[in-house]
């Protein structure tokens, strides 16, 4: 939080919140613009603009002659969960890799601001240091590294036990096991979520976090995602499971590399369900493959 007392003038954006006049206000760190508003009644008023945490503009990724992501535009607000739905091959994982900065994933064009910083100019670990992280759709296996080490990663002050409890794994049984091939797919996914929890990210990109998780355990996953939010983090929740997407604050549907529908999760789920893009012939989204 930062406190300001000197008015700065700037145009009033549409979504500004206008507190009472003459009030000293405390801004959240994510507030990027503020000022005095000349109200029509001649009274002056403060306004505060909360900029999006993630602001993607015109993001395009072309490999060879294939447009894998096509002019994506969307934003994620601080502390909110945004679900991204889309059929297999629609480009969800590619978007995750581009945002995180994985090797070989450099956008062809477009900009991405993360908390005001130009994300695309940063290396992967620098993006992570800003508070961005990614949980892979198929998490890596590490020979020899214990779950305890994986959940602390050199941060000696951190206690991994509560993270494991959160994802429904017994610390007694798991802390000294290794993050290797002996873990089942579901166990590995949960460890990955525990790892994301442990670093308290500002934005966690979760790529199909509930894949391979049995129905009974999905609630654990949902609770973990809610916990990330309670800790103040935002989530880009990539999923095609409706019960998971339902916990989001907002949602988008990706089809052939384009966002074809955005809105509240219930509407997007409805849209996704009715018109799966597996059969997309361009009629639904107006997109014609090159």
């Amino acid at each position, binding site marked *: 939080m930062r406190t300001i007392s000197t008015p700065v003038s700037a145009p009033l954006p549409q979504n500004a919140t206008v507190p009472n006049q003459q009030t000293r206000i405390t801004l959240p760190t994510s507030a990027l613009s503020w000022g005095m508003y000349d109200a029509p009644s001649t009274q002056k008023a403060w306004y505060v603009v909360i900029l999006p945490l993630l602001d993607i503009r015109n993001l395009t990724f072309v490999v060879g002659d294939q447009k894998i992501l096509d002019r994506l535009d969307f934003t994620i607000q601080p502390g909110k969960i945004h679900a991204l739905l889309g059929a297999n091959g629609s480009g969800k994982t590619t978007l995750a890799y581009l945002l*995180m900065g*994985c*090797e070989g994933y450099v956008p062809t064009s477009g900009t991405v601001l993360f908390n005001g910083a130009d994300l695309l100019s940063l*290396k*992967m*670990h620098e*993006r*992570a*240091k800003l508070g*961005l*992280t*990614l949980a*892979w759709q198929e*998490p*890596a*296996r*590490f*020979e*020899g*590294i214990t779950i305890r*080490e994986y959940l602390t*990663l*050199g941060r000696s002050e951190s206690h991994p036990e509560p993270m494991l409890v959160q994802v429904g794994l017994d610390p007694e049984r798991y802390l000294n096991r*290794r993050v290797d091939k002996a873990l089942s797919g579901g166990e590995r996914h949960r460890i990955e979520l525990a*790892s994301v929890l442990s*670093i308290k990210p500002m934005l966690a990109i979760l790529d199909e976090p509930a894949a391979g998780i049995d129905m009974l355990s999905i609630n654990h996953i949902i609770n973990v995602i809610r916990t990330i939010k309670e800790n103040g983090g935002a989530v880009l929740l990539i999923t095609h499971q409706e019960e998971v997407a339902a916990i989001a604050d907002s949602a988008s549907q990706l089809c052939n590399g384009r966002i074809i529908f955005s809105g509240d999760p219930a509407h997007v789920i409805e849209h996704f369900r009715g018109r799966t893009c597996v059969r997309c012939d361009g009629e639904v989204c107006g997109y014609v493959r090159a």
Partner: protein
Amino acid sequence: MSELEELTRVLPMVGAEPTILADKEIAHVVGHGHHILSRRSVPGLRLDLEETSDAIVGKMTIQAGVTIAQPIHLCFGLAYPTGSQRIHIDVFVEERATARVLSHCLFPVATAAQHRMQATINIGPGASLSYTEGHYHGPHGGMRVLPHASIRIGKGARYFSDFSLLSGSVGSLDIDYLVEIEEEGIAELTAKIFAHKTDRILLKEAVMLRGERSRGLIKTRVVLEDEARAEITGITEAHARGARGHVDCMEVVQGKAHASAIPIVKVFHPEAKVTHEAAIGSVDKKELETLMARGLTPEQAVELIVSGMLR
């Protein structure tokens, strides 16, 4: 400082406590060059070792049916920059006996020295031997290390070996192990090597599955940096019904290092099976990126992945 004190001082570098030498329950032999500086036996263990003009030669026997509770410590090394050491030892683990041997090879200040080990290991029916060899070399890289062993594993016997060379720079390492396994015998050979500078590593392990339902595993983990070179040969031959072999070789190459892996698999019986996997290259990209996505720098991430691999 005496030679014994000097070798004892660096024991922690291979994970051993110097106090083991004073413990009456723990058998040990400490050899410096061609001299035996200290030894202790325990009930069920016979140590017939002697000094010759250019070697330490002899026999070590674990008597039939005996289980030696504490590991037997063998400490060999040189406290001087130059010199040579040759050890010729025949190990007998008699029927149904069980023992663990921890072998510590310590060359803290070597600049131009040689350590040659020639061993035969005979493991009787139903017996079990676990053999762990750890090397500590200083930073100079002036050693020639030649551990050669021929191992026979009797019916239903077990042999687990774990060779590690993880700190310091060795110079040249030439390992040659030949393992013959009889019916229902099991051998697991693990080698973990971290080579630096201009180190040269030759590692040859051959497992002959002679008996029915015998099983063999060769696992090697080699990490090379700077201008180090390694050539790894893993040979598995299956000669009998139900024999099972597996070769698992992983080499991580950094800097200007070079590595080659030669897995040789031969199956002489239709009901035998040998599988192998080998990976040579840089650190796995996904593992690396996963750790960087948690905020580790590329260097920190490589270090953690490699340390896990060599564990």
